[in-house]
């Protein structure tokens, strides 16, 4: 057992943190919340130059050929800084399914462009039923001429309004089980019949409603096999859940650091509030949540990266970190007092992100049920 990051990984963390601190200050984060696009194309270009979008893609697709654990480090730092934009949906929800299920032609066509920062991708899975399981997929794709025609409504699609391609999860057959008969398509976001609208959300994080009305997709844009797309989605959901955990732990660490700094400097009753045991115990509890969350994250991420079965580990991690991030950010606001409840202070950004992140890729109840099944219930 070796529970330490390598020197190279520590370096990756430092350079990522330094870059984001400089290039993505909280003023920019707030600005982008109000911005129509929700990301900074200049920053996006710089990130591509650093090789971030192709970090885990093989070198033959102009990637850096690094490991999943390295990506976790990057995501932790992004969560710490609340980097807005389409990194998560392009890399985790876009490039990983293509890498896994794409044809050689699709990989050659798309992955180098993703590495270069020339393409934004996203995944359209959830629908008005707001479920992450196969039962929730009602959007239909029907074979017609030399392709398919998609009809249906997708909700909570990250950054669809700026995406070049949408990986659309569709039902192509009423199979014996809900998992049977799911097919994935790479849909050009500019295809006629697509209507996209940004939804007003708590996190101002550009979740979209995407309506597919008779959208034609050529057959060559099918990602993976006909009717057998669910395992691809399922693996991607595990990757996404654990990747989200990394962002969340980074955010929780930032909320803790911010709270500690405040507790050391804010004076009431003639002494720093951090010298009161009540505040000390809140902080101790917050830190325990962050530290234990990291341990459980790294173990699950390592298993996912190694391609080992990790259903239980991922569910444990997401379930735990969901609660940890909410807890840490809520205590963070409380320790800050009134200023914490305003939009003038950064701590509230984390509180809003924590709730949004919990609900992404399976909330705590969802994860609990997975864990229950894994322990034999």
């Amino acid at each position, binding site marked *: 057992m070796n529970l330490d990051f390598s020197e190279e990984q520590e370096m990756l963390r430092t350079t990522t943190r330094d870059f984001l601190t400089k290039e993505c200050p909280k003023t920019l984060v707030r600005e982008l919340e109000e911005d129509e696009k929700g990301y900074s194309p200049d920053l996006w270009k710089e990130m591509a130059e650093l090789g971030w979008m192709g970090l885990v893609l093989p070198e033959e697709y102009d990637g850096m050929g690094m490991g999943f654990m390295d990506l976790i480090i990057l995501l932790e730092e992004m969560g710490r800084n609340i980097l807005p934009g389409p990194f998560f949906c392009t890399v985790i929800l876009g490039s990983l399914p293509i890498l896994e299920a794409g044809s050689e032609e699709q990989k050659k066509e798309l992955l180098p462009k993703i590495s270069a920062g020339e393409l934004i991708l996203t995944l359209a899975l959830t629908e008005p039923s707001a479920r992450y399981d196969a039962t929730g997929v009602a959007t239909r794709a029907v074979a017609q001429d030399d392709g398919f025609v998609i009809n249906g409504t997708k909700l909570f699609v990250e950054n669809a309004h700026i995406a070049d391609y949408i990986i659309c999860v569709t039902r192509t057959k009423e199979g014996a089980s809900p998992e049977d008969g799911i097919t994935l398509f790479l849909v050009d976001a500019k295809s006629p019949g697509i209507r996209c609208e940004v939804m007003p959300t708590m996190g101002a994080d550009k979740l979209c409603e995407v309506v597919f009305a008779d959208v034609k997709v050529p057959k060559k844009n099918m990602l993976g096999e006909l009717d057998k797309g669910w395992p691809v989605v399922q693996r991607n959901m595990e990757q996404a859940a654990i990747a989200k955990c990394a962002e969340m732990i980074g955010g929780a660490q930032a909320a803790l650091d911010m709270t500690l700094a405040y507790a050391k400097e804010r004076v009431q009753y003639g002494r720093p509030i951090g010298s009161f045991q009540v505040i*000390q115990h809140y902080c*101790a509890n917050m830190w325990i949540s962050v530290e234990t969350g990291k341990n459980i994250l790294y173990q699950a991420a390592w298993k996912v990266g190694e391609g080992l079965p990790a259903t239980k580990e991922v569910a444990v991690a997401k379930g735990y970190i969901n609660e940890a991030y909410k807890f840490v950010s809520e205590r963070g606001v409380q320790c800050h007092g009134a200023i914490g409840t305003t939009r003038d202070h950064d701590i509230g950004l984390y509180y809003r992100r924590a709730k949004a992140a919990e609900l992404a890729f399976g909330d705590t109840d969802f994860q609990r049920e997975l864990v229950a099944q894994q322990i034999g219930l």
Partner: protein
Amino acid sequence: MHFQFTPNEEAFRKEVRYYLEREIPKRWRELGFGLWEETDESWAITRDWNRKLGEKGWLAVAWPKEYGGQERPVMEQVVFNEEMTYQGAPTGVETMMTIGWVCPTIMIYGTEEQKQEYLRKAAKGEIVFCIGYSEPGAGSDLASLTTRAVADGDDYVINGQKIFTTMAHRADYCWLAARTDPDAPKHQGISMFIVPMNTPGVTVRPLTNILGFHSFNEVFFDDVRIPKENLVGEKNRGWYQLAIALNFERSGVAAPAGAKRMLEELVEYVKETRRNGEVLAKDPLVRHKLADLAVEIEVCRMLCYRIAGMQSKGLIPIHEASMGMLFGSELMRHLTTAGMQILGLHGLLNRGSKWAPLSGAIMRGHLASLSLGVGGGTSEIQRNIIATRGLGLPREPRV
């Protein structure tokens, strides 16, 4: 990063498991004794068991060979502790105190004579220590202890009282913290002694713990005379040695292993128990509770590995160890609280009733878990340590 045990560690786990499956005494299994349950019979069984392990070099697997250990790496100790707890091997808190805290401190601060005298015997299961820290007026504020040790010729003469001294009635020696300089600031006048429990002037009086067993004691020292060689480490530096000794207690690698076994038994119970015409395992509230516990157990296990990982590198976990102890003790409270809720009225029953689910183990665990959040530093003291020593928050002004 790498999150798997090595082939060596796995092989050792297999060896330990194989041994335990065959060797754990049948009578011990029948008794089903948990933490803080102590009788003449359980004492006899654990003492025999410790001698048996001692012969194999397994009582103190990580200790140097010259003191009766096997010099196994920390991670193998972790594997060993996990298996011992998970398989329910006979053990008493006196073993943990002797092997886990007192002797490692003697190893650091003791003279060669002291090491030869105590460590070998302890590793063979021949002697056990009780720990004389808490006093009626010195609990969380341990440094205010008033038991005095006064130099007199070749001896020290000890006077005072200790309380909550676990297993003092069984112990061969007391690992005693006493004040040697009453004029120094309170942390700087304490020294550590080894006091044979059969020394004239030592009186042990029982206290009954919340489970109804005699594990705690009061220990009175009336003009107890011990030779100067029984001072361990430097005079008046005892507090700092004691702080190190407390850290041995706080890594807590066995807690999640014990919790895992208990959770598995609960899972089996809910799968075969019907309530209101439905199997309990199908009740969403029950599933929710048990899943939460499974999450907590996994999180605790990883935290313990992290602490062990530090120890593997020769680092001394301080606030990390506090976290481990805190998390482990709260896990046991959460586990047994949820267990009690799931069992309902039946959960109140103890062994001896044919109606008692899991022979009353959850109920007894529920009571036993109380002392986990108190002994060896309360949860509040652990949080103070985490906040001040770990996070660098300013100390509260103290009198």
